[in-house]
């Protein structure tokens, strides 16, 4: 897995499921040789039938005895629900100027591919995967379920997502938060640009003793290196506010401000015991996954 796929190459492939499978296959053959495929085999408990459960999982013998529908839960299935939370605010439309002409992707595209790959990996392991897309203009929610069919629905939902507005206030999405906040793993992908701390507040509400939250902060080469020169008019993607600056003169102050921002974010997430991953959208996507999964493998 030393050879990572160039993001501009990946961006040209518009087929989300294909990209997800391509990226994930490498991991499935490498790091996850011990992964048990399919549903879990060790019986754990019965639970009442819920709409969406596969009919094959209904215990018919128990139905014959009790005249009620119960499904068998395997040990693994009862362990993890994987929820993918995607920041779909307008700031996620940012992309690097250096790669813009090559048809590379913006942060939202990167997040889509990343979450699709994670969803595929989870689905291959038999985990239930759900999706929550957040913006002030639209909220997309898919409950966590396992199975190929559900995975395909999730891919479709991811592909259809559009950015708009700003990140919503946590108070407006309490019902979704309640559903997401269950035993499992929550992947939150965002640039963490917020107006009044709404992203951090959401993460704080998601985190619990049963829930493992992984925050992925997306950034681009432009944000990391600030390669601009001369007179530049910066425009905010969400508020449309403009600032005309001499980029050469503003670089130092910007780098300092960005460093401060990152440090505050790390501190806030650490306080909530949330793992932070920083991903550069102009670097290979599979590299991020490799680093993350390697780290998880070591911890596990």
């Amino acid at each position: 897995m030393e050879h990572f796929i160039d993001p501009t190459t990946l961006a040209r492939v518009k087929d989300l499921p294909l990209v997800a499978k391509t990226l994930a296959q490498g991991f499935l053959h490498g790091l996850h040789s011990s992964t048990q495929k399919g549903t879990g085999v060790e019986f754990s408990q019965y639970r009442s039938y819920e709409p969406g459960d596969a009919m094959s999982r209904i215990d018919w013998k128990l139905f014959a005895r009790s005249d009620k529908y119960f499904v068998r839960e395997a040990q693994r299935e009862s362990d993890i629900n994987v929820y993918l939370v995607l920041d779909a605010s307008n700031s996620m439309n940012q992309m690097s100027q250096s790669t813009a002409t090559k048809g590379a992707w913006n942060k939202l595209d990167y997040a889509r591919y990343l979450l699709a790959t994670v969803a595929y990996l989870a689905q291959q392991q038999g985990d239930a995967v759900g999706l929550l897309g957040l913006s002030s203009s639209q909220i997309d929610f898919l409950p966590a379920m396992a199975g190929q069919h559900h995975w395909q629905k999730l891919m479709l939902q991811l592909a259809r997502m559009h950015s708009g507005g700003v990140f919503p206030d946590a108070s407006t999405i309490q019902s979704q938060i309640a559903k997401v906040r269950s035993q499992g793993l929550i992947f939150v992908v965002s640039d963490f640009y917020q107006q009044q701390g709404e992203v951090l507040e959401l993460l704080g509400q998601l985190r619990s003793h049963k829930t493992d939250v992984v925050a992925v902060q997306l950034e681009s080469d432009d944000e990391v290196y600030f390669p601009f020169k001369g007179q530049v008019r910066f425009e905010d993607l969400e508020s449309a506010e403009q600032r005309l600056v001499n980029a050469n003169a503003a670089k130092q102050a910007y780098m300092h401000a960005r460093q401060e921002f990152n440090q505050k974010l790390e501190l806030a997430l650490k306080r909530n015991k949330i793992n932070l991953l920083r991903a550069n959208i102009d670097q290979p996507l599979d590299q991020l996954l490799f680093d993350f999964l390697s780290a998880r493998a070591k911890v596990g």
Partner: protein
Amino acid sequence: MAAMLSSYFASPVALLTALALLIPLTIHLLSRSRGKVIKVGNIGLIPVARHKPVAQVQLTQKRLLVLRLLLLLLITLALAQGLFLHPLAATQSQKKLMVTNSWLDHASAQQRQELVEQLATQSAWLIDENSEIDGQRIANWAADAQIENRPGTMQNIWASIAQQTESVPRNYSVSVYSSNALSDFIGGKVHTKQAIDWHILTHWKPAQRQVSDSISVVVVADETSTRQLPLWQMAFTLLQTELLPGLHVEYLTPQQVGIDTQGEWLINLSAQALNSPVAILSFSQQQLRQADFPMVLAEQLVSHLQPSLSLRSQRLSKAQITEPAATPVAARRDLKHQAPSIPVWLIVSVVLLFCIERVISEAVRSHPSRADLNG
């Protein structure tokens, strides 16, 4: 438009080219001063100067923009070699006036007086005589007398003008006063370096049919000519009176005719054959008795003058006269008569402005002030 530009710039093509380059450069400088738009996720990370409004362009950048535009303008003027850049050179009030006999012949007294007033203290150039003519002579010009005494001539005024203006400085204005008689424009158009201000007299009456040109006829008669001689004499008298006042008839005997006999026509009414270099004119007896014999005789006598006679009444249009001839390649490459070189003060200004612009530009780049954070 080309003629107008030529009046002010030695190199109108360079001017138009420079202007064509100036437009996109100006657009580039203006848009550069506004800055390229970059969309970012968080404007809060971009520093802002506390004491300036964020949308305002710095005064330094405005000054640089003005300097650069001024520099471009001066370079454009230098390339186009504007004639008005030479304040010590002759002004437009310096002019060369040229006039033709035909204009003087047919101009009214008032028109001649206006020309004299334009001349002021200088003289005009009389094209037909290839000499100067002063205001007094113009004012006192007696057309009838002039026409009568002047032999019929054909000339190419374009060539004369081109020759006369060869050495005239480019900043002189050249005015030509002429009628539109075809006889003054015989031959091809000749390119002139200067733009010509034509004053064409179009309302004039052609000269009367009386031909003032002298025609010399020798009539040789002897005793056998007694019957037809009176007819000839009568015809000659009629022609001299009505049509050909310049007709001169000499009567000789056959013995008086020799190889040194001079005249344009010889009419032999004697019975002897003559050996003379003069062209012989003869008519039959029947023709002599025709009522139109004098007119037929007149046609024969003036047949060598026909082109001149017909040309005197033919006219050209104004456009035919004033439309400039095609510029020959040699004239384009003629460096002798180009406008004076680029003035020194213009070159110094361009260099100075360039240095100032560079110094300010580098100063802004190397030592940006807090105010410069906002551009």
